[in-house]
């Protein structure tokens, strides 16, 4: 199993990095944002953390117009 | 020469007639106040002048050129400040004006000087923050700057002061007064004191027509009445011959008579009041008269 994980690292590392970049960017922007068009800050932070990919995308599309 | 000429303009939205036979002429280098209640068709008229709305009938000429809906070429003579100007919130004032300058086709070499001049005129020089952090008043001032960028012959402002606090209003009126030498200003409003403060001429829009034009240069709108101070005994003597409208203790307004007639009547009744004041109409009086 360890061997297999090592084999997958060339995929897992960039994948984790990309998702993290997306999530952290959205998170930082949500935390710095003062007024929200929909929902509120804690709910957005939860959505961004819980739903990777879709969470940050929803945030960018709905709140950063 | 007239910079703006509107002939027999008509516009309805579905069955709702908004403008019905509007005629209007604005002379060059004046400030023209376009007065009307909310919903009287001021914005609709302005949007037709800008070619943003299509009139049902009638003609509009700007600087002698006919306005055609959908063709924006007459807009090169016009600067427009909407009632609630909207900008791209992610830009700062300099970037926004740069965009506007490029779109109107100002040459690259002239852009910076023009933008700096306008930022200074509206007091936004050195403001680096993005437009999303602007107050209402700042947005309104940036709105004037963007409207003036193409050195328009005609500046149209839709209710530029309505949503502002007294300080913001004063700033906007000062700017409009300052640009009078460079451009003709037409602004719509329902705030009559603003009109009295800076306008040369005003037109009152009521039920889709221009019902009255007023020259504000001499500030004389005609007599409203004659106010006299009378004792109760004097009042009783006069009551049969004059319409006396009680204003305050012992103060009465006489209407419907010339000054000469009033003097003669008073003399014939041997009434010689302590006070006699010729009362002028205010703009508000004129406005209420023609819109009721």
């Amino acid at each position, binding site marked *: 199993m360890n061997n297999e994980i090592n084999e997958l690292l060339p995929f897992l590392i960039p994948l984790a990095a990309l998702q993290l970049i997306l999530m952290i960017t959205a998170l930082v922007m949500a935390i710095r944002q003062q007024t929200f068009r929909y929902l509120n800050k804690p709910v957005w932070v939860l959505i961004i953390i819980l739903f990777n990919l879709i969470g940050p995308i929803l945030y960018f599309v709905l709140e950063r117009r | 020469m007239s910079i703006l000429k509107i002939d027999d303009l008509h516009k309805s939205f579905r069955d709702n007639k908004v403008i019905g036979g509007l005629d209007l002429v604005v002379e060059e280098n004046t400030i023209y106040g376009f007065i009307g209640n909310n919903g009287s068709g001021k914005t609709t008229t302005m949007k037709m002048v800008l070619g943003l709305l299509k009139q049902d009938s009638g003609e509009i000429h700007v600087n002698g050129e006919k306005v055609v809906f959908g063709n924006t070429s007459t807009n090169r003579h016009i600067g427009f400040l909407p009632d*609630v100007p909207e900008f791209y919130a992610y830009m700062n004032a300099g970037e926004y004006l740069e965009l506007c300058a490029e779109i109107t086709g100002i040459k690259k070499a002239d852009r910076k000087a023009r933008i700096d001049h306008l930022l200074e005129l509206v007091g936004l020089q050195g403001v680096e923050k993005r437009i999303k952090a602007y107050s209402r008043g700042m947005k309104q001032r940036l709105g004037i700057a963007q409207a003036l960028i193409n050195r328009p012959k005609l500046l149209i402002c839709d209710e530029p002061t309505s949503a502002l606090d007294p300080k913001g209003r004063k700033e906007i009126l000062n700017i409009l007064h300052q640009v009078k030498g460079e451009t003709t200003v037409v602004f719509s409003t329902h705030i009559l004191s603003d009109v009295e403060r800076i306008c040369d001429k005003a037109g009152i829009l009521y039920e889709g027509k221009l019902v009255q034009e007023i020259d504000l240069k001499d500030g004389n709108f005609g007599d409203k009445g004659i106010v006299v101070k009378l004792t109760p005994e004097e009042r009783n003597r006069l009551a049969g011959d004059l319409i006396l409208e009680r204003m305050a203790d012992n103060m009465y307004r006489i209407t419907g008579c010339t000054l000469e007639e009033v003097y003669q009547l008073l003399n014939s009744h041997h009434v010689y009041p302590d006070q006699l004041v010729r009362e002028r109409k205010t703009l508000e009086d004129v406005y209420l008269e023609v819109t009721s």
Partner: protein
Amino acid sequence: MSQVKALFKKEAIESIRNFKLFALIIVFMIIGVVSPLTALLMPDILEAVMEDSGIAFELPPVSAFDSYSQFFSNANQMGLVILVIIFGSILTHEFSRNTLINLITKGLKKYNIILVKAVFAALAWTVAFVISALITYLYTIYYWDDEVLNLFWAFGLTWLFGVFLITLIMAASAVFRSSFPGVLITVLTAVIIMMIAGIHPDIAEFLPQYLIGSNMALVHGELEIGDIIPAVIVTIISSVLMIVLSILIFNKTEM
């Protein structure tokens, strides 16, 4: 010309500062990585499922075809959905916030607005899609050395369909103006109508939808390039029509 340049710069600043370009590119990079990864993990997943159900049979070894198959299924579904979500409001948000009034009253031609927005969105889509396809391609040639056919064309089909969706967004926006949901529903309806029409085999090969159903058939060599040319031509003509339509509608729109 200076209007086009100014608007293009404005669109670029906008999509960079509101992070939409960034989000689009990251999502497509993720698709590029996930696709070969899923192909690689597929035997393990299938094995686990089969052990549970007690069925056992020999699995063919994972190949480059599985990697591309995963890529097209991800890009054609999630990828295109995200493209539409991100660029679906490119025109409607200008209507809903009245931001075009200032520019149009300065003599900005309405057709420039449509053209620049469509070209900008298409360009952003191209960048995101090329990066994504390139990532999958590089992983695939590193892990597998199967001979695949018509790969460039197969990628091109999905790209062209994305461009078609962008022109559909422009036309729907010109009709619905400030309604982003209106645009989403229109695009969805158009896709569903094409799917239903595609049930009839004679019509199917002329529909834009055919493009995103034929990627793997091209790669396997089951279809020749000539077979997809009708759908390609129909898609290009429809896209041009959509743009012409949006300009005609927009010119008549009262602001």
